[in-house]
């Protein structure tokens, strides 16, 4: 109990310092930061999480048994990598006349990741199907 009390007090102090730093921003900057803070939670809780549930249901209902697990992992890998790569894929920050940053063919790179994921999912799916049919034979 004492550990928890000390931890909670330390956490509150750290967060309070962060809140104090944040409150020190200029009015418009602070409002903009709050929009981003609240927006992130809303975007996750109201858009991304329900979307993942819908995709999960689709996979569970329409994909044959052996393929579900490989596909779920494949979507997890590709989905999170894609999300993390949004800033480069969109090239939103590419400075004009400066080819040394953000000059890569990121869309092409994404296709490579997607293709490798597809290969991985296919290999794992085929292996799972073989295991299942063998298991069914062995089990009679």
């Amino acid at each position, binding site marked *: 109990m004492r550990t*928890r*009390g000390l*931890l909670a007090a330390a*956490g*509150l102090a*750290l*967060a309070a*310092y*962060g*809140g104090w*730093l*944040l409150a*020190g*921003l200029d009015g*418009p*900057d602070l409002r*903009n*930061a709050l929009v*981003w*803070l*609240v927006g992130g*939670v809303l*975007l*996750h*809780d109201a858009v*991304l*999480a329900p979307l993942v549930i819908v995709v*999960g249901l689709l996979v*569970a209902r329409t994909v044959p048994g052996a393929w*579900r*697990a490989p596909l*779920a*992992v494949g979507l*997890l*890998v590709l989905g*999170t*990598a894609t*999300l*993390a*790569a949004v*800033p*480069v*894929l969109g090239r*939103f*920050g590419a*400075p*004009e*006349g*400066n*080819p*040394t*940053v*953000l*000059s*890569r063919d*990121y869309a*092409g*790179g*994404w296709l490579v*990741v997607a293709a490798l994921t597809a290969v991985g999912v296919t290999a794992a799916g085929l292996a799972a199907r073989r295991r299942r049919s063998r298991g069914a034979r062995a089990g009679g």
Partner: protein
Amino acid sequence: MRLPDEHSFASWLRSPAVAARVGWWLGICFGVAFLTGLVSHYAQAPSQPVPFPTRPVWGYRVTQGVHVLAGTAAVPLLLVKLWTVYPRLFTRPPRAWAALVRHGLERLSIGVLVAAAVFQLATGLANAAQWYPWTFSFRATHYAVAWLAVGALVVHVAVKLPVIREALAAEVDSRGLDRRGTAAGPGVLSRRGLLRGTALASGVAVLAIAGGMVPWLRRLSVFAVPSSGGRLPVNKTAREAGVTARATGAAYRLTLVHGSREVVLTPADLAALPQRQAELPIACVEGWSANARWGGVRLRDLLDLVEAPAGSAVRVVSLQETGPFRTTTLPGNFADDPLTLLAVALEGRPLPLDHGHPCRLIAPNRPGVLQTKWVTRLEVL
């Protein structure tokens, strides 16, 4: 249709047994990002009670690379963690007042934690790709929210400590802590399968950007930001900085000032001084870094021309007319370091305009934004 409550989610994977394990790794990533972030913030602080060290020369390169990679690894971990605990969002508030207040406070702390965590990863990733779709100062805000995130994380661990302990002590497949309504066995994926899949997703995300920090991964890293293939990248070109005319014009001079003493040098004067070589990285605050061979005049030799005492800090002024890094302060330990140069050459050739021609500062273990380009004035403080 009835609104779902926390017992409506049946997946066998949405269990504290999974959340505690993913949360453990997520906590490590946030902890590493927080500490390396503090290093970077301090390295950029205009006044440092304890001087930032000049060694190892690759120190900032490593801490800032690790900072960005830890944040990237946290993306799949955070998303999976939030997925496993999503049912909790639908918990019905209790009726009794005391319980309701406790419930509200816990909700608030979780809200702050999620908001701060998502904010840090989203702004950090955008910044690493030089994208600033906001009006606030990135550095000040990312720093403030970092304390908020870590504070809320520590409070969360304090609140959940008994559950975390019990979950980590038991097998991952244990049902002891599962919510009412959780399935009795695996559906699409096993719990181990989800944990391995999450680790794989983190690994892929890290590999995809690590080429910005680790040269031999550059070809493999399809989402790496600097991608100039062998050439040293540039964050801000001379044209963007608006210095082309003055940096290439005949009127360019380098002025050294120490009190009433002033020495004015032309590029030819600079070239006539003893030239040194140093192999030093440019380590950008956005995370990318690259080694290069620099040639130029030792900064200390220039300070000697105006008889600056040892340990003097120096204000370095660029030709840039705007921007927060138009002038930077070089602490005394950096100014005296034999590896700190006012570089006029890169890889044995004259310094290109975009890299700071006629001369730029290059010092060991220093954030890239403080390696001032197009230097026109050195003032001993």
